[in-house]
Each structure stands twice: as structure tokens, then as C-alpha cells.
């Protein structure tokens, strides 16, 4: 399934398997594994994958970075790797060197507006910032007096209100009470660009989690015996799993296509809107249908806290809400398509 021959993606995949195995994590009943995993991720350069080498990062290609994040989804990885990657990328787009340590990125919701005034003070509120409290620094995209500014902000300088996502991961409200950033610089990334980048990343993670759900469900169905045979032999179960296969395929294809679009053409223009919106919408739909089928196949055991399944299903469902949910992107895409008119839709689709 890993559709990459990339060494760095393989390394990441191996590291997740060794140090963040979902079953081991559940048995341990503590977060000690994070203390082992995170330094290793930093050591091999995975946390600053999208930061150019000249700025102290690993200079990994966008493609490979997306591959790492799909692998992170396959592992239901619960550390701010995606957030640190996006933060590093955003800082790099403003020429700001990324600090070591965990980062998150704000805003992650379409309606949260952050502003930098003429005295370079950052204010506003960003809701549901993923892993906000675990971050040492925040990369913030704000409206400056002369256009968008990227600000590097110390987490100790902001007020953090604790909240969680569906999977119980930090998803915090961050108040910027007129803080002075460590650094601020202009950038060519606008609000939409950050939203699209975040959505493309979440689409990869959702696709990865769905791949794992399919794998777990197929395996369970061939092991579990009921009515004196493996439940995989029942046609109703087979057809449900086939449907799950279709949803996984859709999520994977849409996410891979969106990632390819970001790599090739960046985050502006109609192709980026179509591709990334489609990946987030279709991935979100697949998460809904896919999680339901995976749980149905597993029965009661999959609903327990002891079983690994919820680590994948709840994350995939929770990730739908970050960087624009299905409804948000559907309205954006639908309004765009309607404005262009019926004759422009097919040429747009066919150009991809």
C-alpha cells in the first residue's frame, strides 16, 4: 500500500510502528511513549521535514512530506507532527527559521481572524488549534497593515483554553492578547493558502487512517468466527467490506491527487481549490461511511477502549473539522463552480 519508494517515508513508517504502536500505547495507559518518540522524530529530522536545509530543516519534498503524513494517519499518530510540519512550512514561506520543538499553526478554522497592528502586536482568537497546549511555538498567519504576515509566537506568551477533539487530543482555544511575536515577516501565503495546505494535510491523514481501518476490518473478519464460520464468509459482511474498500480508494485517490496539485502548482488558482476541496470533502465522507463500516464489522469489541479501532476512527472523524469541514469546502467549491457557469465545469475537471 505505501505507494512511495521514498526512504524517508519508510523510515517514518518504521519509526511509528516501533515507537507508537497503537496496541502498545493502549496497554501502557500512559503518555510515556511520546517522550521516546518525539526526540527520535526530531533527531532524524522528521519534525522539520518541510523546512529547507538552508534554514536548518530536513528539506524533504512536499510529496514525501505528504507521504509521511499519510503514514502517520495509518499509525493513528497522536503527536503534533502534522502541525509542526505545516508550521515549519509556513515559517519557511516567510523566510523565518523554524525553532526546535513542537509547533502548531493558527488559525485552523476558516472564520478566525488574527490581526497584527502597526506596532507589530498580534491579537485575536484562534479556536480549536490542534495540539495548542503541547506546542512550544505557534506559527500564525495574520492580517498585517500591508498584507499577510507570518508570526512566530512563543506559546508562553499566549492564553490557552483547553479543549479536545473527538479523539481526546488537544484542540485548544488560543487568545493572542496583543503579543509581540518573536519574529514576523511578510509572505506570499494568504488565508486561503494556509487553509488549503492544512486541508490537504488532513486529507492525507484521513486517507491513511482509512487504509488502516480497512486492514484491521479485513483481518478481523477473517479471524472472527460466528455461526460456525468466519464472518468474512458471509456475503453481507463481504459487501460491507467491499464498500469500505471503495471509500478508502476514494479517500486515497483524492488525497494523493490534491497533494500532487499542491506540489506541482501551489495553493492558488482554480485547480488548487477543486483538488483540495474535493479531497477534504470526499475524505470526510469516506471517514463517516468507513468508520461506521469498520465498527459494524468489529462489533462490540471494536467499541471498547482496549481495542485499537477507535484510535483510527475517532481521529479520522475529528480531522474532518480542522481547516474547513465538508460543508465549508462544499459551499466554497459550489459557489465557485456556479459562478463560472455550466460550460466551464467540464473543462476544469478534464484539465486535471
Amino acid at each position, binding site marked *: 500500500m505505501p505507494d512511495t519508494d521514498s526512504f524517508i517515508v519508510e523510515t517514518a513508517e518504521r519509526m511509528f510502528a516501533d515507537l507508537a504502536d497503537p496496541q502498545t500505547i493502549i496497554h501502557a495507559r500512559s503518555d510515556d511513549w511520546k517522550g521516546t518518540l518525539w526526540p527520535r522524530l526530531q533527531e532524524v529530522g522528521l519534525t522539520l521535514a518541510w523546512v529547507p536545509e538552508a534554514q536548518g530543516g530536513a528539506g524533504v519534498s512536499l510529496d514525501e512530506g505528504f507521504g509521511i503524513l499519510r503514514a502517520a494517519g495509518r499509525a493513528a499518530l497522536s503527536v503534533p507532527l502534522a502541525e509542526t510540519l505545516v508550521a515549519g512550512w509556513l515559517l519557511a514561506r516567510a523566510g523565518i527559521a523554524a525553532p526546535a520543538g513542537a509547533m502548531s499553526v493558527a488559525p485552523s478554522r476558516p472564520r478566525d481572524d488574527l490581526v497584527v497592528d502597526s506596532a507589530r502586536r498580534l491579537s485575536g482568537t484562534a479556536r480549536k488549534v490542534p495540539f495548542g497546549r503541547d506546542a512550544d511555538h505557534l506559527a500564525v498567519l495574520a492580517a498585517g497593515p500591508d498584507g499577510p504576515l507570518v508570526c512566530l509566537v512563543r506559546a508562553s506568551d499566549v492564553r490557552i483554553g483547553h479543549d479536545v477533539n473527538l479523539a481526546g487530543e488537544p484542540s485548544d482555544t488560543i487568545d493572542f492578547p496583543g503579543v509581540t511575536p518573536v519574529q514576523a515577516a511578510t509572505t506570499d501565503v494568504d488565508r486561503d493558502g494556509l487553509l488549503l495546505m492544512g486541508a490537504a494535510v488532513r486529507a492525507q491523514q484521513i486517507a491513511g487512517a482509512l487504509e488502516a481501518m480497512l486492514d484491521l476490518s479485513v483481518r478481523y473478519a477473517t479471524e472472527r468466527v460466528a455461526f460456525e464460520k468466519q464472518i468474512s*464468509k458471509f456475503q453481507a459482511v463481504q459487501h460491507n467490506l467491499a464498500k469500505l*474498500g471503495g471509500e478508502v480508494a476514494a479517500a486515497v*485517490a483524492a488525497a494523493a491527487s490534491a497533494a500532487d496539485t499542491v506540489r506541482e502548482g501551489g495553493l492558488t488558482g482554480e485547480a488548487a481549490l477543486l483538488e483540495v476541496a474535493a479531497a477534504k470533502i470526499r475524505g470526510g465522507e469516506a471517514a463517516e461511511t468507513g468508520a461506521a463500516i469498520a465498527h459494524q464489522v468489529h462489533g462490540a469489541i471494536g467499541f471498547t477502549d482496549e481495542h485499537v479501532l477507535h484510535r483510527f476512527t475517532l481521529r479520522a472523524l475529528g480531522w474532518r473539522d480542522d481547516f474547513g469541514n465538508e460543508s465549508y469546502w462544499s459551499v466554497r*467549491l459550489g459557489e465557485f*463552480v456556479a459562478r463560472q457557469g455550466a460550460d466551464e465545469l467540464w473543462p476544469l475537471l478534464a484539465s486535471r
Partner: protein
Amino acid sequence: MTALRFDPLRLPPHCQELRQEVRAFLADEIAAGTFDPHHPEGGAANADAFSRRVGARGWIGMTWPKAYGGQERSFLERYVVTEEMRVANAPTRRFFVVDRQSGPTLIRYASEAIKRNILPRAVRGEVSFCIGMSEPGSGSDLFAAKTKATRTDGGWLINGTKIWTSNAHQSDYMIGLFRTSQPTRENRRHGLTSFLVDMTTPGIVCNPIGQMTGHREFNEVVFTDVFLPDDNVIGELDGAWKQATSELAYERSGPERFLETYGALDALLRAVGPEPDVRTAAGIGRLVAQLHTLRRMSVSVAGMLEAGREPVVEAAIVKDVGTLWEQALPQRARELSAFLEPDDANHESFEKRLAFYLKTAPKLTIQGGTTEILRGIIARGLGLR
């Protein structure tokens, strides 16, 4: 891990150049009145002449060997021609079956004489094929076919009935599946053979069967002592089942497996105009996201086929998800149009087109492999059976 592979293949630049040629050709045909892109049932009367003009452009059998009139162009180029024709609502019925299925089958399994006789004419758009698979007692369960081919001097005598045979009454040839011996205990698929049937052979009667759309494509085809020469056996005697599977990936993953009701989306966009309300916009956005995803899946499979792989499961997934989507599309368009002004200029056209697609929808998950059959194939690919 369960391997499902959908790489983000992009069509190469020469495909996009070809696309512009096809669009210019279709625009000329529309201007000349050959067919109406907004009239789902239009163009039938001109299908023959259209077929010849498409042939003259080299767009039928374009992947076939040059020895038989083909151009040995790539499957990706064929993909582009197919999707442009489908979206434009062009009347492709005369050549679509031979281009997609029957031609490739003949190339692989027919005698040299048959290939030399039929394929160059097919490339010119002059011959039309139908597929004789289903029978009154054998639909999805292909291997229950009973129509018999019995040995006689220099050939075979065919007796029995095929049914639901689309366009048989307008076809020059059929590739039919007939029973040449009984199934064995070890292999119930044994005993069926593919034959080429010249539809003008004495003893063939096509009885029309009306469809709920008001169309007449279906036929009952009755064979009474129809003589077929030995040369018309296509492939291995009693071994037709071995020939079917590898070609199904082409048949199942093409753009026609999700674009059949595209006109409903086109009509909806015309009816709602440039500034729909938020509910309608959200509905349109979802449909476009789903359609784009399907197309990207389908192009990905086309790329794997072009690369010589056999993505049987991926192709079945495209047809499963694609046909369910195109089946639901008219229903979604209907819901999204509920609050539109009925006296708007575009509304009448919208309602007419929608009615056609609502009536077409039920067949889409039946023809060419039902949802249930496809799910069985996918389940096998996942290692469940």
C-alpha cells in the same frame, strides 16, 4: 496490508492536445445539427453518419495494431476521446461496443481472416457490434447460459435465445456466448465458447423489448439452426471463461461508468445560475468533489492498464462507486432544484433532462456487472473469499 493503489496520474500533454481536437470536432458536429448536447435522447438518427466521421478522424480502434487499421495509440488517448464524447452527449452507439470490447476481443482471439475482414471496417465506423451474453435464465450468472452450439459439417448450429441484447436490431455482428459442452463437476464455468455471429445469417430474429425510458435498445434474439462456420469460434473451445476476466478491467473503469447522467449536473448548473443559495451551493460542491474524485480514480486505473498491469479490483471499485454515484446524481439534482423559480427560462429544459436521467438511473448499477457482482469481486480482491 490490503493493497489498493490509486496513484495521481496526470494525462500527458499530447492527450490534452488531442482533447482540443475532439472538442473542435464535436463543436462542428453540434453546429451542423448532428446532435444536441442538451438533449439526452438526440442524435440517434445521425448515429451512422456520425460514426463514419469519427472513424475518418481515426478515433475508433485507435489503440489497435496498424495492421488492422488502428493507430497503436495509447489507452490514455482513447480515454480522452471517450470522456469528451460522453460529456458532449454524442451519439456513439454505433461504434462504442466494438471500440471498447468486441474489437479488442477479436484482436486477441479471432482468426487472421476475420481480423482482416472486420477490423478495418470497424475503424472506419462502418460496423456495429452487440454482446450476446444474458439469457432468460442467465443474467449475472453467466455460466448458466443454455443457448447451444452443436457441431455440424464445417461449423456449428446455434439454437436458443439471448435477451436484453442492446442494439442487436441495429448491429452487424454479435459476439455471443454459447454452450458447446456441459459444465464439469470440477468447473461449472467449463463448456461455454465465444462465437462471432454475422447478424444477417438466416435463422436470427430480433424481437424488440421496450424499456421504461421509452427507448428501444433491448432485444430478444432468437436463434433457430443458425449456421456459423468453424472460423467464427473466438478463442478456446469450451474455455470462454478464461477470456472474460482480463478485459473486464477496461470495461469497468472507463469514464462511461460515472458520466452517464452528467447532463443532470449540467442542467442543474444552468437552472440555478451564477449565485445559488448556500444550500444549493453546498450540494453542487459535494457533487463536483465526488465527480472529480471518481475521475481521478478512473484515470489512475487507465494509467495502470496502459502500464500493462491488471488492476481488476481497482477497476471494479471504480464501477461500483461510479455507477452508484451517477445513479444518485439525478436524485440530488432534483432535491437541489426544489426551490428554484419554475418560470425561469432554463427550468423547462432542466425538468425534461432530469426526467430522462431519473428514468435511466435504475439500469446503471445493473448493466455490465451488477453492484452485487462487483462487490463480490472486490471482496475476493480483499482476500475475503
